[in-house]
């Protein structure tokens, strides 16, 4: 298979899937081996850049997703007749930050850092798709733990949680989850 065709296949798959596609799935379906994939995606993105294309491919942790470029958002909004969403509240940003920097964490952990029950804020972030459940803690009550999603990464212009801006001096908020749940 020619490189041209490989690129076409990657584009078609990402376009049709809409959602982020895991590297292994993209590789399997396109017939491009996983090692070559990142360089081909880079090639596509360079091409989009050169042409001033309205779309681009974002890397979100181990997945790729095709999206529009920021600068065209006013035009898209006009076409779709949608409005901007209400910005995230301070409380929501705070909870999102706690989860992002300490994931996976339970609601109890979040509550402990904020000193207030944050269950509904967490649920709200789940509904917005910014946060998702990530299993349960192996302690009594088996509380659910949460992590950020690809939507979160995309929404904040990150390609991985490793790219989160460092917290002044501290990399993590240092609380041992085990102590909290006692």
């Amino acid at each position, binding site marked *: 298979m020619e490189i041209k065709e490989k690129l076409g296949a990657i584009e078609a798959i990402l376009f*049709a899937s809409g959602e982020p596609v895991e590297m292994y799935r993209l590789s399997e379906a396109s017939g491009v081996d996983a090692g070559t994939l990142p360089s081909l995606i880079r090639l596509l993105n360079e091409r989009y850049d050169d042409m001033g294309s309205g779309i681009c491919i974002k890397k979100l942790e181990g997945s790729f997703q095709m999206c529009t*470029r920021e600068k065209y958002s006013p035009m898209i909004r006009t076409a779709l007749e949608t409005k901007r969403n209400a910005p995230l509240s301070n409380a929501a940003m*705070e909870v999102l930050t706690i989860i992002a*920097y300490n994931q996976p964490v339970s609601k109890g952990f979040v509550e402990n850092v904020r000193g*207030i029950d944050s269950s509904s804020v967490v649920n709200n972030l789940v509904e917005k798709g910014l946060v998702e459940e990530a299993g349960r803690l192996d302690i009594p009550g088996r509380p659910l733990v949460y992590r950020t999603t690809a939507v979160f990464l995309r929404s904040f212009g990150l390609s991985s949680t490793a790219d989160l801006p460092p917290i002044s001096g501290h990399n993590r*908020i240092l609380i041992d989850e085990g102590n909290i749940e*006692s």
Partner: protein
Amino acid sequence: MEKLTFSLENFEGPLDVLLNLVTKHKLDIFDIEISVLLEQYMNFLDEAHEKDMELAGEFLEMAARLIYIKTAYLLPQKEEAEKMKKELEGALIELSLCREAAAKLSENFIGDDIFVRQPMKLKADTTYRLVHDPERLVNAYMTAVSGRKIHKGRTNIENKINSVVKRRIVPVLTKVVHILRELYETGEVYMDKLYEGADDRSSRVATFLAVLELTKFGRIKISDDNMRVFFSGDRRRKKWKSKKNSEQ
């Protein structure tokens, strides 16, 4: 010091209030003057209370926690007090760092400016194909239902109480309330009566600390023989005495 004029509903819980007080009064977050913080916090609660707002439990719990720390400093052994103060400072530092990070993060929000597509509706066979042991269903179900308890029902409350008791905050507060209640009823009470039912050590310590704290605040006085406690104001005490006399 400047008086706080904001109200409860502007705050996300007691830590948020404390953090604001620390900032407002330029307290050193790494070495907080507990007595100043306590005073300011109490003023805040009074004001919120005056506005006829129901004080949520966590706000009172925080008051008790501050009182406890302050009281523990009166003990000859200061380790416990230091430890609890550090814990509180830690929590405040954490929250303020978290706020900083949240502010930084929210500057980068571009979620509203990036659009994605809905997946194409293709006729693809997405039927699940794997086969599992039916016993997995039981395990998953039990886990799902066990999770239910932490959201609903008693376990949650019990956990909360346990964690509070573990920090030994509630005992002092409940003892303070207990003592005041006794005194409101009678104006004077025998010390022994305050210790009634306080069988375990932590409960006795809590009573002791509660008396100490109330004395220190000038709320109550202890009789010279250390047998009785009474309100600092004389009025009630007399009332109580006369009542007692009439009973005799």
